[in-house]
């Protein structure tokens, strides 16, 4: 699969490449190369990060091609003190990644349009948020509304600064970083496998399965372990169960935000049997402890299959009935339609992934575009909607839940009988390599990248939650909407704070 072309290396999902095989080009070539790559609409930026190598910085760019299923890895080396032109200026989808590099290594970009710290103030010299350079207007007619970081509901902290004209939002600036825990550094520091996998489960609490699957797939590749059928099975099943549970909970919350009590109550109730099943399978409702590299502590049995089949029949009946009522309710349609619209153009420009892209008519879903494991064998029906508004994002959840149920029913027909019990905790890792793993969590594309040193130890670990792309989609979506529709828009994206802050 690994083909060498002049300035980059082509690979695929869940693969390991030797770092020295990745060509190092000068920044100008790297710049032009990435500009050319990202131009095509079927490609998007999966990750873009830098690691310190003495006085120099080595920047890696990982671009995924959704059509050819290839992943392009390119890299450059630059002097830390040098000022360089930014890719963001041409292709804004690079903006959070370049800001991250600026914040960590103080690398100066000469023409970055929005060079502010990404997770202020954790890597920066300033240790308080008080002097954050918020965008502001000098006007008598406009007013600013600041929301957070303490949130009215019991959710995570983040600060939102609106500039409004009356009820209309002109601009929203989202400033996060309050949840920074240094997860990426911990992956390097904690050397036990169990510590690392538990860490991966807590990158974003609502995507436990998504992140732990991404980690497990990556780690197994690094160990040279061929993932067995039963591991693929349990990961795909757990991932779809997580998707169903979170989507249902989101529909409940969306009903709550438009004060549609019936939907809130019914969808809220429907989430419970699904997460309870996950608990009866793996002992935890969110799926903690379920995914482990090389083994599974909770093999899927015939009894579990029977109980899941029964649960799904009952679930589907009630879910479809409620969803049909919900989406046909005029007062609900009035709130959802044409609210918080994202255009296809925005998605291409900003590189949005997951539900945001899928609700704008773009099939950017790792399960189809970069399949791994069971997704290679079993054909799922992609769910693509066109309108890009809150309604599309809500309806997408409804449709995806149905697709996931179909998928689960299909994979349940053959439960793998051989159980893998391989203990990988002392297995040596491939040295001086770069491993990439993409997983479609319920929110969108999760990308984990690990780099190992010459002793086969993890030298750097880089995590990308889809939220890092998509927070900006929220900022775009609320423009020219009413400020009172902000909570609804926010919920329709349901992005992760700690997934962003790491």
């Amino acid at each position, binding site marked *: 699969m690994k083909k060498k072309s002049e300035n980059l290396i082509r690979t695929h999902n869940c693969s390991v490449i030797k770092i020295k095989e990745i060509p190092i080009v000068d920044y100008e070539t790297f710049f032009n190369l990435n500009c050319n790559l990202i131009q095509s609409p079927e490609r998007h930026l999966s990750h873009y990060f830098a690691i310190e190598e003495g006085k120099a910085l080595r920047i890696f760019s990982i671009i995924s091609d959704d059509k050819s299923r290839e992943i392009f890895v390119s890299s450059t080396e630059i002097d830390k003190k040098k000022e360089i032109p930014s890719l963001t200026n041409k292709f804004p989808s690079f903006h959070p990644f370049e800001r991250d590099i600026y914040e960590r290594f103080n690398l100066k970009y000469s023409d970055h349009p929005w060079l502010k710290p990404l997770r202020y103030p954790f890597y920066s010299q300033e240790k308080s948020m008080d002097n954050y350079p918020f965008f502001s207007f000098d006007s008598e007619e406009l*007013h*600013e*509304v*600041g*929301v957070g970081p303490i949130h*009215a*509901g019991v959710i995570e902290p983040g600060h939102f600064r609106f500039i409004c004209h009356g*009820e209309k939002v002109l601009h929203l600036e989202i400033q996060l970083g309050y949840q920074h825990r240094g997860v990426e550094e911990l992956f390097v520091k904690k050397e036990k496998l169990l510590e690392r996998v538990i860490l991966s489960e807590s990158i974003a609490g609502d995507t436990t399965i998504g992140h732990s699957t991404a980690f497990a797939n990556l780690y197994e590749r690094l160990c040279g372990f061929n993932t067995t059928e039963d591991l693929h099975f349990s990961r795909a099943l757990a991932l779809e169960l997580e998707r169903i549970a979170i989507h249902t909970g989101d529909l409940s919350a969306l*009903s*709550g*935000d*438009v*004060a*549609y*009590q*019936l939907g*809130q*109550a*019914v969808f809220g*109730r429907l989430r419970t049997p699904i997460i309870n099943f996950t608990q009866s399978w793996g002992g935890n409702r969110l799926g903690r402890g379920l995914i482990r590299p090389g083994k599974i502590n909770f093999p899927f049995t015939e009894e579990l299959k029977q109980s899941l089949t029964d649960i799904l029949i009952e679930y589907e009946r009630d879910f479809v009935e409620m969803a049909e009522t919900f989406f046909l*309710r005029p*007062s*609900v349609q*009035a*709130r959802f339609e044409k*609210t918080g619209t994202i255009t296809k153009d925005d998605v291409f420009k900003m590189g949005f992934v997951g539900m945001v892209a899928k609700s704008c008519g773009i099939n950017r879903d790792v399960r189809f575009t970069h399949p791994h494991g069971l997704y290679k064998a079993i054909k799922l029906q992609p769910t693509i909607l066109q309108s890009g508004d809150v309604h599309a994002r809500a309806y997408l959840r409804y449709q995806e839940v149905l697709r996931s149920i179909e998928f689960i029913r299909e994979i349940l027909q053959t439960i793998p009988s051989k159980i893998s019990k391989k203990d990988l905790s002392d297995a040596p890792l491939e040295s001086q390599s770069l491993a990439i793993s993409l997983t479609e969590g319920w929110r969108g594309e999760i990308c984990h990248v690990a780099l190992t040193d010459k002793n086969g130890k993890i030298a750097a670990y880089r995590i990308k939650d889809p939220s890092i792309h998509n927070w900006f989609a929220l900022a775009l979506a609320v423009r020219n909407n*009413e*400020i*009172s*529709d*902000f*909570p*609804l828009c926010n919920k329709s994206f349901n992005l992760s704070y700690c997934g962003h802050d790491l």
Partner: protein
Amino acid sequence: MLTIILALVTGIFFTGIIIRVKSLTSGRKGPDILQPLRDILRNLKKGSVYSETTSFIFKIAPSIYFSTIVASLFFIPFGTHKALISFDWDFVFLFYMLAMGKFLMVIASLDTGSSFEGMGASREAFFSMLIEPAMFMIMGSFAILTGHTSFSDIFSKLHNGSYPITMTYAISILSALIVMLIGMVENSRMPVDDPKTHLELTMIHEVMILDNSGFDLGLIMSASILKFTLFGAIAANLFLLPEKSLLINIAIYFAVQIFYAAFIGLTESFMARFRMKKNPQFIYTITAATLLIFIAAIHSTGFIGGN
């Protein structure tokens, strides 16, 4: 006097019924019908916390708001039983007294200097302003119909036989519905506002009182219940029959109030709230519907058409 006692009795169970209806329709058991009253009592026992940026306005506003609503109950008669206070054009006085209470709440919330509360205040003021004509249209129509201008006279003369009872009852039913809708807008309930939401950016009334606590909050909560019973009492008065006994009339009164509470509960259960931008349209629709009452009134008095 009778109205005040009845209004207070209604207040005991009114919000309880709303919450109970909402619970039952969503498949829950729901709290005790007296729970809202207990919440109020609990709040009244507590002390208030005041922000350093607020002035005396913030401290007096809840009491004035509460007293305007209690005072306005004195103007409501019970059928032929006159109200405690009654004079010509007292309905104009009543509505402006309510507006004064609201005005104080608005400036009190501006007093806190919070941008949230500023938004809430501007919304509340805007919607109250829009709903005002509707109330005057209704009372004006009844003034034309009966030839009197005080609540007591209007309600005691309404069903006394000068017009066919079916006609006055038909007008009453439409008016009662509109009075109930006005009460819902005035009290910031669905579909205009969602009292249950935790999202400050979408709130109208709730965000205005974010800074109020303890005793003040208790006063505001009881005031909004009394406001419901006030509008319910106006609606109920439209159905009271002078020739029937007092007991039957009291039964009618409670039937209307319970219907009102259940109506609010059902509305809040089975529909989503409006987008903020659509609220004025909804309020205009209410006002437009009052025109029907107005036309019916002037038609039957012979101002136009008839003899």
